[in-house]
C-alpha cells in the first residue's frame, strides 16, 4: 500500500521522504558498512591505484603508470609463481573432487549407525585443527634422516628412496601438495556428506526396484544430485589453492631457489621484505584478474554441462 501512496508524490521528494522514514534501518546498517568500507573496500581500491605507483608505504609514492606491470612481465619469479600455483590448483581440484567424494559415499553407505556417526565426526575433527599445525606436523615428518616418512621408507625396504623431500627441486612442490594425505578429512568431505544426506529415500527405493547396483546408484542418483556441492568444492578449491601461502612459507619459503614460489609469497616478500608496496599491489591485482577469469570460466563451463544434462 505504501508504495502506491508514494508513487503519487513527486519522485525526488518521495525518495527523500522514504529515506527519512527508514532512517533507523540505515543506522542499523552503519556498523557493517563502516567496518567493511574502511577495512576492506578502501584498501581494495587502493590496491588498484597503488599498483600504478612506486610506493614504499612511507615517504615514496610516485606515479609510474604501468611500470609495475611492465616489470612483472620481465620478472622471472612471476612466471614460476603462477606456473606453480596453476599446478597446485589443478592437483588440489583433482584431489578434492575424487577422494573425499568416494569416502563420503562410502561412509554414507555404512549401515551401522554408531560406526557411521563416529566416522562422520572423525573426518570432520581435523577441520578444527589450525592449518599451520598440520603444516608444521608435516614439516616435521618430512625432515631429515629421522623424519617419519624417510623412516617408513627404510622400514619397508625402500631405503634408496629416502630423500630430502623439501630440499630437492624435483620433489619440493609435490611435497607441499602431499601435505594432508590422504586428503579426505576436510571441508569437501563434509559438504559431500551433507549433500548425500539430503537425497530423498524414495529415489533409492525406486532404484532398488529397478535393480540398480551400487555403482549405478552412485553414478545415476548420487552424483547428479550432489552436483551443486561438487561445483562448490571446485570453486572453493580453486580460490583457496590459488592463494596458497602458509604451506610454501613454512615448508620451503619458496625454495630451493625459487622452485616453490607462489604469487602470495611473492606479494609478501616484495611488500614486507623489500618494502615495495606498489609492486606488491600490482601482483595482487594481477592475481585478482587471473582468479576472476578462472572463476568465471569455471562457472560458464559448469553451466554448459548443466544444459547438456
Amino acid at each position: 500500500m505504501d508504495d502506491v501512496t508514494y508513487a503519487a508524490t513527486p519522485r525526488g521528494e518521495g525518495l527523500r521522504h522514504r529515506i527519512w522514514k527508514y532512517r533507523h534501518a540505515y543506522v542499523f546498517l552503519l556498523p557493517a558498512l563502516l567496518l567493511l568500507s574502511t577495512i576492506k573496500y578502501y584498501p581494495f581500491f587502493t590496491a588498484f591505484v597503488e599498483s600504478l605507483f612506486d610506493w614504499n608505504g612511507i615517504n615514496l609514492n610516485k606515479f609510474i603508470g604501468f611500470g609495475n606491470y611492465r616489470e612483472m612481465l620481465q620478472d622471472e619469479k612471476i612466471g614460476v609463481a603462477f606456473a606453480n600455483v596453476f599446478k597446485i590448483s589443478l592437483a588440489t581440484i583433482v584431489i578434492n573432487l575424487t577422494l573425499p567424494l568416494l569416502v563420503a559415499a562410502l561412509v554414507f553407505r555404512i549401515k551401522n549407525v554408531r560406526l557411521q556417526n563416529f566416522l562422520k565426526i572423525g573426518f570432520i575433527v581435523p577441520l578444527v585443527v589450525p592449518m599451520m599445525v598440520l603444516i608444521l606436523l608435516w614439516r616435521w615428518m618430512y625432515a631429515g634422516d629421522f623424519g617419519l616418512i624417510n623412516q617408513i621408507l627404510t622400514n619397508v625396504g625402500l631405503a634408496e628412496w629416502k630423500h630430502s623431500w623439501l630440499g630437492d627441486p624435483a620433489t619440493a612442490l609435490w611435497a607441499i601438495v602431499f601435505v594432508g594425505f590422504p586428503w579426505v578429512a576436510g571441508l569437501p568431505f563434509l559438504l559431500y556428506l551433507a549433500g548425500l544426506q539430503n537425497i530423498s529415500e524414495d529415489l533409492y527405493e525406486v532404484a532398488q526396484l529397478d535393480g540398480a547396483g551400487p555403482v549405478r546408484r552412485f553414478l545415476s542418483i548420487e552424483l547428479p544430485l550432489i552436483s551443486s556441492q561438487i561445483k562448490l568444492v571446485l570453486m572453493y578449491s580453486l580460490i583457496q589453492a590459488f592463494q596458497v601461502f602458509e604451506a610454501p612459507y613454512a615448508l620451503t619459503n619458496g625454495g630451493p631457489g625459487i622452485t616453490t614460489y607462489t604469487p602470495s609469497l611473492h606479494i609478501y616478500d616484495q611488500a614486507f621484505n623489500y618494502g615495495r608496496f606498489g609492486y606488491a599491489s600490482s601482483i595482487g591485482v594481477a592475481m585478482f584478474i587471473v582468479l576472476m577469469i578462472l572463476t568465471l570460466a569455471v562457472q560458464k563451463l559448469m553451466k554448459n554441462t548443466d544444459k547438456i544434462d
Partner: protein
Amino acid sequence: MKQRSIGVNLAALLIFALSMYPFLIMLASSFKYQMQIYNYPWFFSKPLHFGNYAVAFKQIAGPILNSVWVTSIGVVATLFASSTAAYAFARHSFPFKNFFYAVILMLLMIPGFVILVPQFINIKNMGMYNTLIGQALPPAASYTAMGVLLMRTFFEGLSKSLFEAAEMEGARDYRIFSRIVLPLSKPILATVAIMSGLQIWNNFVWSLVVTTGDKVKPVILAIMTIMGNVNEGDGVKLAGYIIASLPLLILFFVATKPFVSGLTQGAVKG
C-alpha cells in the same frame, strides 16, 4: 549383502586410520624425548614425559592469552556488525536496500591476498599496527559478509506476528532487535560466533604482517618457534602444536552441532 557391508566398513575404517595416523604420531611423540622419537617413532613409548607440555606451555602461554583476546574482540565485532545489518535487511524495505546488500556480499569475491598490502598500510595509518584490535578487525570484517547473509536468512524466518505485536505496543527497532530478535536467534549467533572465531584463531597471514615481537603475538605465530632443549627435542614442539589446537577442539566437542552447521552453511551460501 552382509559381506559387502563388512567390506564397506573396513574400507572406511582403513582410510580413517590412515588419515588419523599423523595426528596419532603427533600425540604419541609429544610425550617423548628426542631419543625415544629416534628409536621408536611409530607409537607411544614409555616413559611418557608430560613435562614436555609444561615446557611448551610456558613458551606459548602469553600468545594463547593474546589469541583469546584477539578472537574475542573479533567475534564480538563480527556479531555486532552482522546482526545489526541483517536486521535492517530482514525487517525493512528501505531505498537502495539491494544495492547495500550487494555491496556487503561482494566482499566474498575479493581474495584476501589482493588487499593484504593496502590493508596493512591502512591499519598502520589508523594506529592499529601491532595491537590486538588491529589483528582482530580485518578477519572480523571478512567474516561479516557471511554473517550478514546467514543471519538475514534466519531473521526472515522468524515469525512475523511477533514483530507486529511488538510494534502494536509501540516498541521501536532498537527494542525489537535487542529484546525479541537477538534472544530468539541464539542458534545462528552461535554458528556465526564459532565460525568467525575459528577463522580468527587460525588466521596466520594477517597476524604475521601486522604484528612484530612478542607484545601481541598470537599463538598461531608462536608455535613456529617453540624449542625444546637437547634432551627434550621435538617432543616439546609437538606438545605445543597440540596445546594450540586444544581450545578449538574442546569447543568442537562441546558444540558439535553449531560447528557442523556453520561449516556446511558457510560454504554452501558462499
